């Protein structure tokens, strides 16, 4: 009934026996950006991996458009309109750009895949010239753009980005952030963004989730967290 795209309910998750997330709950409304912030090792990436089903879920529930997807295999999550850009290794270095794009269109029928690839290449002209080059020949910023192009091909409703600007030059980072804002503002997509630059994140986010040692310290409006001097000083290096 509500306008939530994603609901995470008392999630406990980790890797094998390493329990990392403790009773994490939050919601992401349709068409909004949720930014996940917090110190290193607080479970930000694990949150995304748990939602996509790559980390181990011990208990809790994840609802996507009202449907329980807690135990859905990752490749089926891709089919219902979820997309995830990992922080590192987010393209296939040994495959060509074209093969990378074809993999990104894996769930689509052949003609539709060709058309979507063509359209995405118009949005990312840089990739067009390098179609037959292996992805490992790309620079860091180009790889992130390829990773993003790969997410867009399936035209998903929901995006998760794990520190997409890490290690990028300011210009390349801005290009990525602009694309993310374009996704929300022009295409009405729903987004979770993990970002180590807390100020930048809180300025572009609608909602914010502050994780500390795998527990939720704050969940609410991003502007509110930005103004919260205590949390900002303690955990985010702000103020």
């Amino acid at each position, binding site marked *: 009934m509500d306008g939530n795209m994603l609901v995470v309910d008392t999630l406990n998750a980790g890797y*094998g026996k390493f329990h990392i997330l403790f009773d994490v709950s939050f919601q992401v409304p349709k068409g909004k950006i949720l930014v996940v912030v917090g110190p290193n090792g607080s479970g930000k990436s694990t949150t995304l991996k748990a939602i*996509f*089903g*790559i980390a181990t879920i011990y208990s809790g529930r994840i609802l996507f458009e009202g449907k329980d997807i807690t135990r859905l*295999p*990752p*490749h089926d*999550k*891709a*089919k219902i309109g979820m*997309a*995830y850009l*990992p922080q590192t*290794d*987010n*393209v*296939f*270095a*040994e*495959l060509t750009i074209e*093969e990378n794009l*074809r*993999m*990104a269109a*894996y*769930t689509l029928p052949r003609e539709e895949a060709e058309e979507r690839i063509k359209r995405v290449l118009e949005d990312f002209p840089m990739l067009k010239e390098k179609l037959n080059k292996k992805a490992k020949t790309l620079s860091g910023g180009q790889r992130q753009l390829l990773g993003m192009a*790969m997410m867009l091909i*399936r035209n998903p409703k929901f995006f998760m980005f794990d520190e997409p600007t890490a290690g990028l030059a300011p210009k390349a980072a801005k290009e990525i952030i602009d694309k993310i804002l374009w996704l929300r503002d022009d295409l009405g997509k729903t987004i979770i963004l993990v970002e180590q630059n807390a100020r930048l994140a809180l300025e572009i986010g609608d909602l914010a989730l502050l994780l500390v040692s795998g527990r939720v310290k704050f969940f609410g409006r991003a502007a509110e967290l930005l103004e919260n001097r205590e949390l900002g000083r303690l955990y985010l290096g702000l103020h």
Partner: protein
Amino acid sequence: MPVSLKFLLDSIAWGSAIGLMSMGLTLTYLTTRVPNFAHATVGLVSSVIVVWLLDRFYLARGGVDPSFYVVSIVLSFIFVGLVSAAIYLGVLKPLADRGNDVINLMIATFAVDIILFSLLFAVLNVFPTHNLERALDAQVSGYEPRITIPGGYRVAASTIVFPVAAVVLALLFHIFLTKTKFGVAMRATIENPNLAETLGVNTKLVYLASWFISGGLAGIAGVAITMILSANPKYSALIIVSVFAGSIVGGLSGVYWGLLGGFLVGFSEKMVTKLASEITGLELTNYERMVSLILVIIVLLFAPQGLAGVDWGRLKARILGGGRGGD
């Protein structure tokens, strides 16, 4: 010439069989990280198919004709592929899903090997034959057509058929890996299974397919080995050493390198022991496995990543540069 053309062709045929096995072993190692010690025995499952085809159909019709090779290769690929996929689904996947490490999985493949070996032995032992005297140790090559080669020698047709088949299979596999969606997905899964999953690739299915293909290739190699030696699973214990040696020489990082590594190991086993025997006058042809293991040591010492890890461009430049007197 210390070796005859016939011996050269026999060595190439043997190398091709080992190469096909090493190729499959490398594939499942790359996808599921299982060092499969049952691989050679799995391949020899096709000895039953060979004996069955020969006994029921071809001997009744008067002998082996070219269709025998096509039928035995296709049937073995499918049947042995299914056996291999069943081993993955029934034994290795459940163990891996429960969090067992590579050592446990490897030991499980030993168990599978022993079980399968006993089953194969039992089946061949009690196999009701109509035209053959008995199934176990049936010498298939005796019924094969002969091909005359330069020098006046006559070789069994399989000596020519299986090297050609190995090349054709490698080409087909290359087309599969580069031109088909599922093949590209297999390469993607080998490189980064999590990323492949997030893009919608069912990596579990890719793993299963890799076990099917690996088993199928081993099955074809098994046909070749049955033809070259005889129908008996006991050979698997010897072959598996060469197959692992071949995969290690190849570098365990690419299927074609596995094929090449296996070929080199199989080929050198025959060639080196033969040459050593000719030169020393001693009977050294029983020491084939020593050659493969010495090759492994040499490769691990000088090219720890195997043939795949060698910088061929640089090596060529160095050798050619040296040839010009050094500059």
